């Protein structure tokens, strides 16, 4: 029963991070702050949800796969955000696709 309680808590926290991340992206003024919001939602939100689900997992294989998914998602997420920030910093004032 305790495990269920913990999972509920972790998953709810994770979802809240996602929601706040999305709100951040909608409301923040420039790209960098949005990137900040994205990495938070990305890393922590998913991490908490994976943690919550891992508690429910019955077999070790499931936990292993959950961990793998989280690592890959977090890794590619943060790299992508780094590249975005890098690209934003260097980009001159004229965005190439201003409609």
């Amino acid at each position, binding site marked *: 029963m305790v495990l269920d309680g913990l999972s509920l808590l972790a998953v709810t926290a994770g979802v809240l991070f996602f929601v706040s991340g999305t709100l951040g992206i909608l409301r923040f003024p420039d790209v960098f702050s949005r990137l900040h919001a994205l990495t938070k939602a990305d890393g922590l939100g998913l991490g908490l949800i994976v943690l919550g689900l891992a508690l429910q997992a019955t077999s070790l294989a499931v936990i292993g796969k959950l961990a*793998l998914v989280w690592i*890959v998602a977090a*890794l*590619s997420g943060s*790299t992508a955000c*780094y*590249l975005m920030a*890098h690209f934003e910093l260097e980009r001159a004032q004229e965005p*190439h*696709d201003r*409609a």
Partner: protein
Amino acid sequence: MIGLEVVFDVSVAVLLVVLALESLYTPNLFTSIAFFIAFGLVMALAWVRLQAPDLALAEAAVGAGLTGVLLLDAAREIAAVRGVERTPRSMVRLTSLLVAAGVGVALVAALLEVPPRAAGLAEAVREALPLTAVEHGVTSVLLDFRALDTFFETAVLLLAVITVLVLQAHQHVRIIPWELSASPVLSGLVGLLAPVVLVFSGYLLWAGTHAPGGAFQAGVLLGAGGILLELAGVHTVSRLPRRALRWLLSLGVAGFALLSGTLLLAGRGLLELPGAGARTIVIALEIAIAVSVALTVVSLVVGSNLRLEPPEQEP
């Protein structure tokens, strides 16, 4: 619980339509592609809701990933020069609206006539499944019941890659190399991702016989991994000698041709798998298809981007 199912279905459906509308009607081409990529992601969720994990696997890699990458590549080269797309005249838009609406109404009328409880061929497949070499319904349909479809499908992939390679041969254009030399971070990421992709597509291939997965999903994922490698400067496909590349590209069709040729000579049907050893045949065929699909995918995406020396200096 039941109410929740309906809410989930409807919200995925609404999201799909909204994404499609946004993707089709935003003026800026890059926004349209961004929405199309999101459309592919939600499409994979729709397959999940329809209990079609095989399709979710394929759609996740093809819909959002590969088609999105292809469109981004093409848009970067074409749209950047021509600027805003030419907006069609209002008369044309009106007629197209009317025609599409007419087709839509006709299809809804037809949909109402579809029997809501029919089971299609589910029963027939379930009965015949034990006689086939594999336990997973979709793989048995693809490689046993309707193997001819898959044979032609590998031929269609070969045709697409021939067209791209013919165009590539015409364009002796030195295109700026694909790899991102400037960022060690990316090559670091790719270095870590490559083994994961390789192991995971092997798992998908092996799982195909008894669980969702199979040749095409594994092939497409392997292809995506190949593209990541090309991006990080590790040239796999583009450094292959021409003859080897052609062999690997046609491996799927060649595998089918070899199999059906021997079956015909043995007096069996064109693709009538023998009782004994059918499982090894199917697995061998799946490996051949996965490899050729992977290389086809990489050639399709990277094919029109390779750094091509003019003919004289070719190594």
